[in-house]
């Protein structure tokens, strides 16, 4: 008898969660925004303000834009300006807005075997890593960070190849963990680094080049020819996150006293 009651409760629970999907907005975003805890902190406030439930699907920027292109999500929050512009140009997205920024940094073993702390700029730092054949962990997943990394390699004129260059296909934290285990270098956004800092032995080996600026943008998926896209709800999220209040909340988000993202909406 007891078992039957538990089963019925389970049945109700799942039917409820399957049926209650009307007011759900699907947001595809990068691992850096979700895993840093930023969205866990922002979205409950948004849900309270508007009554719209946001489902977060955290993948790399490339995959997030692909989901938007297919119409599988309603809005995307990503960080790869070149891909974002193409997304809008091709007619898949509209109403792109700047949301916030942080910067990329190169993490590496504290001993800094490739001596990139002395690098003149980020291109020089990458060259030093390649010349030394120091282990470098690449995201390899078309995420915003991966796109940035490939841009830097291309501009430095080096085609990274060989045992030292490892294309992981992992999310940011996992790639950092891998670098931590293999004593390698890895390009990371500062937000993710700060959120895992206490668990790793890596240190910031290079930072500060203008080239490493990392802006995030939010884009609504174009509802033309896709009547199932929740455009109005998506616009509410875009307006909310770029509003004075939303921006203040972003600036107030801190881990161990350090600010992870800086509001940049105009």
């Amino acid at each position, binding site marked *: 008898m007891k078992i039957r009651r538990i089963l019925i409760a389970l*049945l109700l629970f799942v039917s409820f*969660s*399957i049926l209650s999907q009307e007011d759900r907005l699907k947001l595809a975003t990068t691992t850096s925004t979700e895993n840093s805890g930023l969205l866990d902190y922002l979205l409950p406030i948004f849900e309270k303000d508007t009554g719209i439930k946001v489902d977060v*699907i*955290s993948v790399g920027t490339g995959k997030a834009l692909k989901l938007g292109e297919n119409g599988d999500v309603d809005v995307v929050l990503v960080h790869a300006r070149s891909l974002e512009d193409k997304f809008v140009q091709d007619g898949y997205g509209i109403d792109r807005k700047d949301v916030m920024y942080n910067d990329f940094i190169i993490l590496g073993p504290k001993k800094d075997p490739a001596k990139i702390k002395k690098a003149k700029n980020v291109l020089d730092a990458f060259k030093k890593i390649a010349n030394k054949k120091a282990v470098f962990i690449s995201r390899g997943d078309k995420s915003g960070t991966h796109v940035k990394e490939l841009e830097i390699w291309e501009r430095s004129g080096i085609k990274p190849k060989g045992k030292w260059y490892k294309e992981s296909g992992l999310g940011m*934290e996992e790639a950092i*963990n891998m670098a931590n285990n293999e004593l390698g270098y890895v390009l990371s956004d500062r937000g993710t680094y700060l959120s895992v800092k206490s668990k790793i032995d890596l240190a910031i080996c290079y930072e500060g080049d203008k080239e490493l600026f990392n802006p995030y943008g939010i884009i609504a998926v174009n509802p033309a020819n896709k009547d*199932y896209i929740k455009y109005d709800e998506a616009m509410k999220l875009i307006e909310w996150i770029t509003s004075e209040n939303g921006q203040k909340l972003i600036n107030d988000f801190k881990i161990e006293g350090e600010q992870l993202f800086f509001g940049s909406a105009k």
Partner: protein
Amino acid sequence: MDLLQKIFYLIFSFDRDIYQIVLTSLGLTFFSISFATVIAVPLAFIIDFSNYKIKKFLIAFINSLTSLPTVVIGLIVYSFISRKGILGFTGLLFTPGAIVIGQTILAIPIITSTIVAGFSKIDSKLYETLKTLGADKRQIFLGIISETKILIVAALLFGFGRIIGEVGVSMMLGGNIKRYTRTMTTAIALETSKGEFEFALALGIILLLIALSINFIIHLFLKREDKWKRI
């Protein structure tokens, strides 16, 4: 030591986040197994009653399907229910319903092949006995069901234990959405990647306990069946 304490604290303080995830997993798997049962049980009977040559072929076929990789099922279902796919209008991608579809497909061959394998152990005279007693097709069906219900329950539990531990389908089709489609396995993958080992290990222990106790129950059942056979 500190780690162990934290893990047990998470489990025994009935941490809300953890049990939300456990409930989601149990509920989704329960649904998947229910749907799979509707197809797998009749299928097992059809296979068992077909003539020798076809039966041999069907058994080989269904057994080989049990090794379908979960990510391949995920991929195929994904391509159907993505907005670009032919079932895109359902809007099922990244919902619990999507996970149930994938897991059901995954469970059907597992349950069917387990039941068929069990049939071969059951007294082959049962069918003839029922027939000589003058039972019609329906009565034979019900007679066999009542003689094999323990076997069927064991097969369903076996399927449950297998499905609750799969990660490919849940991750690809559910999207690992917090408090919606996040299951034990996808949560473990995520928390491990974030370096939150306590949370991941606490979930891992619960998952292990569920899977192990299910198998334990199955073996109790099967033992009872052995006794029944000897009589």
